[in-house]
């Protein structure tokens, strides 16, 4: 039994530590997804503004975030800001910030796409019943836009969850890092340790992302 690689997972505190690591990943994901959803909606609405200046400002933000790889943003905020501003930010906090900046940009673009895909007369009939511009967004545009952007937004959420694994590289100890630690300790005794550790990490990510996708499908059907 003892040479079965899978036992590595259940030795000592290993499994519990993996779950703890997963907790760190999920905390970063949940915080940044929440911030991104709220800010993304506002960014998306701003991107449909009547004013060219507002639109191009938002566009520049989106492009800047997209052009630079996420890993570079993590390094810039974690290492460079410290040097320039002498501001020592905790790695997890930097992860929250960078993922929120990224998520907001992506969510904003999704919201913009959904809002502009609505026929213009929806807005006009909202105005025609005496609603203010803001009320038209609140009661007419957003509820319909949310239904349209849901599949792609959920896709973004699962992408964000998976991409949190990058934070290893600024020293956050999350599920992947703990997995590597376990492998390092056990690899000499159990040569297949890395296979089993990565398999369990795969499984952990899967049981988190899969229900989210199922839920999205369910909502999509219900709102059709």
């Amino acid at each position, binding site marked *: 039994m003892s040479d079965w690689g899978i036992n590595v997972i259940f030795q000592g505190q290993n499994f519990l530590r993996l779950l703890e690591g997963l907790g760190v990943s999920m905390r970063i994901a949940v915080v940044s997804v929440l911030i991104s959803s709220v800010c993304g909606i506002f960014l998306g609405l701003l991107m449909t503004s009547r004013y060219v200046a507002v639109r191009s400002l938002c566009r520049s933000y989106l492009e800047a975030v997209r052009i630079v790889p996420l890993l570079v943003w993590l390094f810039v905020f974690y290492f460079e800001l410290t040097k320039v501003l002498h501001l020592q930010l905790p790695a997890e906090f930097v992860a929250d910030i960078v993922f929120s900046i990224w998520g907001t940009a992506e969510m904003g673009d999704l919201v913009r796409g959904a809002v502009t895909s609505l*026929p213009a*007369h*929806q807005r*006009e*009939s*909202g*105005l*025609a*019943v*005496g*609603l*203010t*511009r803001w*009320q038209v967004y609140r*009661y*007419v545009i957003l*509820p*319909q836009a949310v*239904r349209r952007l849901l599949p792609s937004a959920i896709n973004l959420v699962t992408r964000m969850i998976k991409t949190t694994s990058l934070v290893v590289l600024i020293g956050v100890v999350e599920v992947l890092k703990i997995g590597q630690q376990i492998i390092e300790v056990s690899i000499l005794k159990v040569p297949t340790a890395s296979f089993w550790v990565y398999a369990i990490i795969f499984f952990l990510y899967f049981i988190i992302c899969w229900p989210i996708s199922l839920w999205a499908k369910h909502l999509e059907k219900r*709102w059709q």
Partner: protein
Amino acid sequence: MKETEKILLEVHKLKKNYGNKEILHGIDFSVHRGEVVVLLGPSGCGKSTFLRCLNGLEEIQSGSILLDGSIISDGKAEWYAIRQKIGMVFQSYDLFPHMTVIENILLGPLKAQKRKKNEVEKQAAELLERVGLLDRKDDYPAQLSGGQKQRVAIVRALCMNPEIMLFDEVTASLDPEMVREVLDVMKELAQQGMTMLIVTHEMNFARSVADRIVFIDEGCIVEESEPEQFFTAPQTERAQRFLDIFSYEN
């Protein structure tokens, strides 16, 4: 002066451009309370644009619009407040697809006018009853036919208790057999004394419902007259040509 003779809506020298192109060339126009005016004219003559200017969906370049004697087009008055007095129904089926019939109707009165829910619900039920759709009040727009949707759209505008109703080619994208049910609702409204401004291509309807016909061509009012006179003996050659097209079709 009798109440019905009072001018409700007045337009002075209204000009409207799209880019450099002037669409409306200084329109002077007025509607009395209780009057039904039908705007006729070839496609692209500016009649729909004119209607849209009246409730602020299009910005105007110069001129003024007065409702009940006060200026509404100077930017000081808020359009959203004015639109509560000016009901509008569009050509496209413009119900909100994510709301039921009754939610569509209640949105304006509850959120824009902040009225009490039970009072508005009662009025909505009465109006739906009148257009024969009370049993469909919990349906979604996708479950309704085009004619039913337009009748709901009319009820939605009416439930705001507007002083005037604007109809922008409301039957133009309906199947022919559904046109009648919508026109009947409008005719009934006219008979009840609602002030109405109607853009339509239904000539027989125009003739029977209008107190006055306004013929617009190339952004100008070319002729204004009573329907009998307009349809039997138009005073301008342009109006005659316009009517000829329709008599040829019939």
